[in-house]
């Protein structure tokens, strides 16, 4: 532990120390490495199938997931409605298939938004001391606010849309990513080879691009998988609290939230979307774990 005490955050702490410079990895080799283990293979397969389902949604025997038909609401599974109908008489099967799109977009979108901004602020504060003071105070403030409460307030501000929810889930993640990137960069900056490059007059961008960023790739990959999983869960909780994606749009989160009243009478309404959430989060997490083991040679040696 450094004396620069980090406000703690879950995914960062789950990471190994990254105190030694590492050679840049061949992505293909990494992929092969990762997929050499069975849990990773299964996870990748499940995830692949879910992505495929999302892409091919219109051709999987689905109907329009938004069309309501109140006179047919809460029907049990039948040949027309494979998984029955929901509280508006919408086809549950179609909503689950289309819901994969929204939930994956929420997961991936959150990862992209939070990594983009997190890396930007992390590099900024790690490399330029002047930025550290101002930006990091702001980040600390943001991080100290319970994420879910901030998200509820943000959704209340701009109304419930997919974009708002995505941003609301991403914002609390940004300071965590920024902190992690910053600490990696601070560590790498002190390495002799980086100092040498600096003395030799390497330009700022080249320095950041060639020497600093590559070191953040590994922890970012792992952290990304955790953010992905957490985002899908947070979306479900926001929907439960009534501050989620608009109810018309099918997402696994708001399907569970809509169906919760019927838990005792029609458990399948939350069971199926719940199963999808669990499967997705499970496989993403598994991949993250394997990835972490592969990327951290110190640990890999011992395993």
């Amino acid at each position, binding site marked *: 532990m450094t004396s620069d005490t980090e406000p703690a955050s879950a995914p960062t702490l789950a990471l190994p120390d990254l105190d030694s410079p590492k050679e840049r990895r061949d992505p293909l080799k990494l992929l092969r490495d990762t997929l050499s283990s069975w849990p990773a293979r299964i996870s990748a397969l499940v995830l692949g199938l879910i992505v495929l389902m999302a892409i091919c949604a219109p051709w999987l025997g689905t109907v329009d997931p938004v069309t309501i038909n*109140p006179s047919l609401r809460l029907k049990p599974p039948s040949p027309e409605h494979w998984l029955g109908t929901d509280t508006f008489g919408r086809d549950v099967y179609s909503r689950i298939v289309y819901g994969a799109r929204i939930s994956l977009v929420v997961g991936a979108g959150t990862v992209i938004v939070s990594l983009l901004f997190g890396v930007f602020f992390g590099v900024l504060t790690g490399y330029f001391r002047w930025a550290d003071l101002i930006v990091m105070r702001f980040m600390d403030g943001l991080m100290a606010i319970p994420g879910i409460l901030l998200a509820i307030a943000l959704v*209340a501000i701009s109304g419930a849309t997919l974009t708002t929810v995505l941003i609301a889930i991403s914002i609390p993640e940004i300071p965590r990513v920024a902190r992690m990137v910053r600490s990696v960069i601070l560590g790498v900056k002190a390495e002799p080879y980086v100092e040498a490059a600096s003395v030799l007059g390497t330009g700022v961008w080249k320095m950041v691009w060639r020497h600093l960023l590559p070191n953040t790739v590994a922890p970012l990959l792992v952290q990304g998988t955790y953010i992905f999983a957490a985002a899908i869960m947070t979306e479900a909780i926001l929907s439960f609290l009534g501050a989620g994606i608009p109810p018309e749009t099918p997402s696994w989160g708001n399907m569970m939230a809509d169906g919760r009243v019927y838990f*005792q*009478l029609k458990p399948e309404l939350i069971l199926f979307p719940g199963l999808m959430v669990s499967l997705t989060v499970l496989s993403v997490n598994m991949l993250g774990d394997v990835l972490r083991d592969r990327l951290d040679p110190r640990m890999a040696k011992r395993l």
Partner: protein
Amino acid sequence: MLALGNPSTLVKATVLSLCLGSISFAAQAETTITAVMHAPLRAVDPVISTAYILRNYGYMVYDTLLARDSAGKPQPQMASWTVSDDGKTYTFTLRDGLKWHDGTPVKAEDAVASLKRWSQVDKTGQVMAKLLERYDITDDKTFVMTFKEPTGIALIALSKPSGVAPFMFPKAVAETPVGQPITSTIGSGPFKFVAADYKPGVGATFVKNTDYVPRSEPADGLSGGKVVKVDKVVWTTMPDPMTAMNALMSGEIDMVEQAPHDLLPLVDGNPDLQTIVFPKQVNQNLVRMNFTLPPFDNPKIRQAALLALDQQQMLDAQVGAGSKYGKVCASVFGCTGLYPSTYRADDIIKAHPAEAKALLKEAGYDGKPILLMHATDLASLAPQGPVIAQNLRDAGFNVDMVSMDWASVVARRANKQPVAEGGWNMFSTTNVGPDVGDPIGFIGVAAGGSSAWFGWPDVPEIETLRLDMAKASDPAKQKEIAEQIDHLVIDNGVMIPMGEFQQVMVASSKLKGEISAEAPVFWNVEKAK
């Protein structure tokens, strides 16, 4: 933060808050009814707010001068009255034995001060104030209301059962400006409010007011003797309806005021539970359009919307497909009240997408999206938006449904700007029967332009008729005027009735004697051991 920085304060605060009582559910020697109401009690001024939970609170703690019986006829409650032969002067006399919860007697000056505050806020009260010449306090028990012309409004107004009912406050409290919520909880009603146990948003406790002298007549609607037969009533809030039903089935609570319709199968055939419906507490769905913005500034496009909407689909989504708790109803003033109407019933009740499309074409609708506000956090409103949106889309409207919490709807519907600047085109809500059935007080039919309810319809004929209604005292005449208003409201698209549904109360079979009235009240209710 400073306080918590000090360890001893922190420890004290912790111990204190761990020990401070929460709501007590335990069975005690005294009889307690624990009820889950439809909303939490968070404020205690039943006059400045129209929230129904505050009206219910009002009926616990406060009393009214007059009250309506089960037939809807005004009857004496705190006061009896006489009318002068010219119909202009009403003399009210307070009955004996009325006392505030602090023991002081109720006086005529209290009543006049209460009526003055109420008539600034309430729509019916405002009409009454317009017609009133003056109040005169004759003695401690008597006051006189003198009107500018003969009218029957005094009795209608003073017995107004819902929305904002004219509750009686001590004079000092009633003199609080309407811009300032009162915090006193001293009334003269059959229950006393236990201020120490009040936790806003969590629970409220009422104990029997042992000094209350009920009228001798049996309870009938809101009139008659308010005899309290339990020692204590506890209102508790449960944010999760599923939990409330489970708690009821486990015997942890005694009633759920508004059980979710879809969960009623859970209690079917359970001998320990009963379901109760109060016909007068029927809810009317209504759709409101913004008259000041295109496209709904065009009467033809408003008619197209009226033709496009389907009541049965809305009711199916709210209370279950084909449920007996939902009924289509084309009448502006509701089908259970005094002024039912069947004017253009088919147009209103059923969807006519083809005709609506034709009308839209004729009106030159440019395809500009309708901004429809959809409240997601209230159980009865959440199903409305998607049904309306789909009906309108089927008829060729472009709809931009914006989902938000009710607080946002409340704020945004007051916005008179164009849509791009935070305005709106359409929203939907519900009102209860007693409010809907009152042509003078019903906010959904007021059509005075910028002073009207959100949507700001401007139909001067309606305003004239509403004033005529207030002046009329002959029921037949009132009925005729109401029918005229109904036609004008529909033909101008002031509001679109979207069907009526009943809330269902589920209670332990131990409870008996619930009064069927315009509001849920707790007098006359017994709890068997």
